[in-house]
């Protein structure tokens, strides 16, 4: 078919391609709705991959009152770390099970931070941002991860360090994380301001605004 038949419309039946399966495994576990198992670890990127050396890496939490808390790389890796094994779900429909990470819980980083904020805007080297409620960053739900599968986290996957918030779609787990701005009012991030859901719970299939 030529023009006049948009590829993604819901009111036309797609043409099934005989024998086409895609590069997937058959799921033997329950995945969130609309997800497929990935056999590799796809690399998604909205721009050039930042190469940040750990010498000049810094992580900063800024509060709504203008207070600032900083960690150097050395300070970060000296904090108590946890090993996390978790499933991850990307909004582009792949899921990966049992991924293994090491990182510092946000509970540790936020322990001494005085704030009345309800929201967080996560900021990355390279300019990426993503927003989430502060309550989703605490109580053992989020980490600054710096090792993946027993190795240093590569730049392609967000190294030196990325946010890991596995209970939300993986775009919330910002690569190349450099800080968190705490806010009284919610402020949409990079994808949240371009059609993606503000919260992004994969089990409720909150992909797009209005879902």
């Amino acid at each position, binding site marked *: 078919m030529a023009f006049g038949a948009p590829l993604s419309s819901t009111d036309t039946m797609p043409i099934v391609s005989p024998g086409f399966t895609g590069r997937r495994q058959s799921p033997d576990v329950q995945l969130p709705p609309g997800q497929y198992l990935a056999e590799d670890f796809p690399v998604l990127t909205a*721009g050039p991959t930042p190469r940040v050396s750990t010498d000049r890496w810094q992580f900063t939490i800024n509060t709504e009152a203008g207070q600032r808390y900083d960690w150097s790389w050395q300070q970060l890796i000296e904090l108590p770390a946890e090993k996390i094994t978790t499933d991850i779900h990307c909004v582009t429909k792949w899921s990966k099970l049992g991924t293994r990470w090491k990182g510092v819980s946000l509970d540790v980083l936020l322990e001494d931070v005085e704030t009345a904020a309800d929201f967080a805007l996560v900021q990355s080297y390279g300019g990426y941002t993503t927003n989430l409620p502060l309550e989703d960053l605490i109580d053992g739900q989020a980490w600054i991860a710096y090792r993946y599968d027993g190795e240093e986290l590569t730049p*392609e996957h967000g190294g030196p360090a990325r946010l890991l918030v596995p209970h939300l779609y993986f775009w919330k787990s910002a690569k190349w994380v450099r800080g968190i701005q705490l806010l009284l009012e919610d402020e949409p991030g990079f994808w949240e301001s*371009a059609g993606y859901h503000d919260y992004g719970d994969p089990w409720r299939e909150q992909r797009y605004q209005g879902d």
Partner: protein
Amino acid sequence: MSDTHVDTHVDGNALAGDLREIFAVDLTVATGQCSGCGYKGSVASLRVYQNAPGVVARCPACEEVVLRLVRGRDRAWLDLRGTVSLEIPLPS
């Protein structure tokens, strides 16, 4: 062409199909101006990152995001805040 998932960009040409679904004319031949650095060039010459939740087009001069397009099930979101203006050729 290729379908490997590597961390590289393609040209704005690759936006043609998605934009043609929304607009009556081919926007890749339009001349856009970047709000970051003022660079002017065709949409077809932008740097496009496609292995992402949406399509992100960046200025070839300063890498500022000039266009974002997200395709949902029954709607699309087009964000042009990085573009000052688009000059679109039309038949005379």
